């Protein structure tokens, strides 16, 4: 069973790279450029984790988080310098980010969640 990560960013280049970096045998990355589009489709995807940019057209990452299920783990990846109200996120990564560290974090999280589910 694959672990579904949604990555949301209005920069399509980053979306593409994120998918390339993060995808593995057990991890599937679904990317979105618009939070509004995401909200329309998220129910059909049923993701295990969401990683979101902050500044996007239509909604900010924080605003989006409020609209999503509290049970869904959320990670914020942002270029903002000083951001408050990020309590809905389990972790905040600053852009530009160390993708290796991010990948390690996400994989550990995947392992943990998978393990939790199994038990």
């Amino acid at each position, binding site marked *: 069973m694959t672990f579904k990560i949604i990555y949301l960013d209005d920069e399509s*280049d980053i979306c593409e790279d994120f998918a390339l970096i993060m995808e593995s045998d057990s991890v599937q990355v679904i990317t979105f450029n618009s939070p509004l589009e995401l909200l329309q489709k998220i129910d059909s995807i049923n993701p295990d984790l969401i990683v979101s940019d902050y500044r996007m*057209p239509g909604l900010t990452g924080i605003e989006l988080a409020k609209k999503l299920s509290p049970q869904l783990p959320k990670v914020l990846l942002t270029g903002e*310098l000083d951001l408050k109200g990020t309590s809905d996120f389990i972790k905040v990564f600053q852009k530009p980010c160390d993708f290796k560290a991010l990948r390690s974090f996400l994989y550990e999280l995947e392992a943990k969640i998978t393990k939790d589910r199994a038990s």
Partner: protein
Amino acid sequence: MNLDKINFKLIGLVLIAIMASSSFFVYRAFVEGYVQLDQKSTEDSLTRVHQSLLGQQRFIQEKIVDWAKWDETAQFVRGGNKEYANKNLTEEGLAALSLDFVAILSLDLKVIGKMLPSGQTFSEDMSGKFSFLDPKGSLISPSEGPSSVEFVPYGEQIAIVTAHTASQADGRDPGGKVVFLKTIGEDMLKRISEQNKLKVELVPASSLPDSANWKSLSFGGFENKPKFAAGFVAIKDSHAKVLGYLKTEISRDVLLFGTQTAKHFFILMMAIFLGLIAAFVSFTLFFAKAQELKRKAKIVDQLSEAQALAAIGSFEYSPETGALEISDQTIKNLDITNTELNIFEAIDSKLLPTDKDKWQKFVSESNASNPLSVNDFQIMTHEGPKTIQVRLTANLVGKCDTNQGILSFKGTVQDVSAKVMLEKELENQRSLAMRNSRLAALGEMSAGVAHEINNPITIIESTLLIIQEKQLNPEQIKARLERIAKASQRITKIVGGLKKFSGTVATTEISRVNLAKVIQESLLDVEQKSVNSSVSLSADITEGPMVLANSIEIEQLMVILMNNAIDAVKTLENRWVKVILGTRGDRAFIQVQDSGSGIPPEVAARLFQPFFTTKVVGEGTGLGLSIAKGIVDAHHGTIEIIDTLKNTCFEINFPLAQEQSDEAA
């Protein structure tokens, strides 16, 4: 009533003249004059005299006295002075008398106007002055003057004898001693009578009955005040005979005198009355004038106080005549002492050297065809440098007909040092506020800027990791490197845009600015934002307009307007922003239009107020348009909302820079 035109000196002189003449009439009436206004008492007196004379006549007629009774007769005739009768006349005079002729005199009192000074004896050369007046000029009164006069034959001559009274012996006739004045001849008598206009009829003594026996001719009967009648008695030995008497009648002159006195009195009263009126009028005028002067003095005080408060001094100066009126405040403002100076030279002498040419030009350009000149000048005073503002008007005074008058200047000198300092301070504060607001805008932008920069860096990072980890063929690597280059260019561009806003304080530099170029640059600044917001950005730019401006501020202005426009339309269905640059007459205009449907009037009214914003909290500071307004104002431009279009449109208007041969800047 214009009190200035009243000649108070003249009024004073007239008053003095009236008072003096009044005094004169008072003197005449009460001191010199023989005041007798009561006609009834005058008539009474005359009646008494008449009766007295009648009685005298009767007495003499009835009693043809003999010489032995002379005393009695003389007493009656001369007023009952025994001493007079007995001693003086008999002993000193009558003894030598021989009667040659008789003078019959009728007195015309009107001409008795001259007097013999008191204490002087009659002399030939004084004959013209001989009169029957007392020393005070009054007609002879029994109590004061000679009570009788006798023409006494004395040898070949006639002696005129007067009884000069010195004391009052009784109520009727004071008596007195006989003064033997002089014996005079016939010619002299004629002269005296002519000079005194006495009617003298000379009758040879021999023609009188029993003339050889007549010793003396006497006339008397002076009675109380109206002394105008006389009776005559011829005395012969021991006999006296009445020769005749003058009619008793009221002399016109007495009445005239009374009338004249009345006239004098009337004039006096009139004079007093006029004097009172004049005094009243002059007092009223004087009082009004005093009030007026008081009021003027108060106004002058107020003016002077107002001048001091406003630090405005005034002056009036005519270079041709040198006439100078100068207020204390002017002297104070200019820090001068000699008010006799030529005011223009006085100002010139206080000017800082840098302002001297400006002042010369200022004065020379002030003439009748240039109604008001105003300029500021720097002067040096003992308190240090000051800024004065001089206002000058020139007028042609007088000689209107020839249209060539004297040039006269009126002006004010205001100490505006404090104002200038305040303005400088305000300018500093404004500059600081501009800088602060620019920093605030920068702060507002920085979050977005960080995002804009961090994203491309993120792309570079991720691409590098992919190149490291993935097995890529050369084509793929090339594509990845191009992506890195693109991201790098994005960063370069953003940083380049930021530099403009991080401009130093020295952004007040003004130069000839090509508006088209500045707008192109500002379009680049907002390009990314418009792309992000899916707003189509277009421009319709006429090349060429040059303005005198600070290019960074103009660019900032454009960014503010375009950012606002993008923010305003980004949630709309139809999203576009258009910038238009053109010229209209001697002005350049820039329009920023967007797809919005205009600005509601209640918003438009507050649009340029600082901290007014319609944006959601966190998105706008409300400073943008107030900064924009400040920039436009500093460039002598205008900014307004064009509400005749279907869409929202801001229009900015700048004066075009004048043509220059060298395309500088």
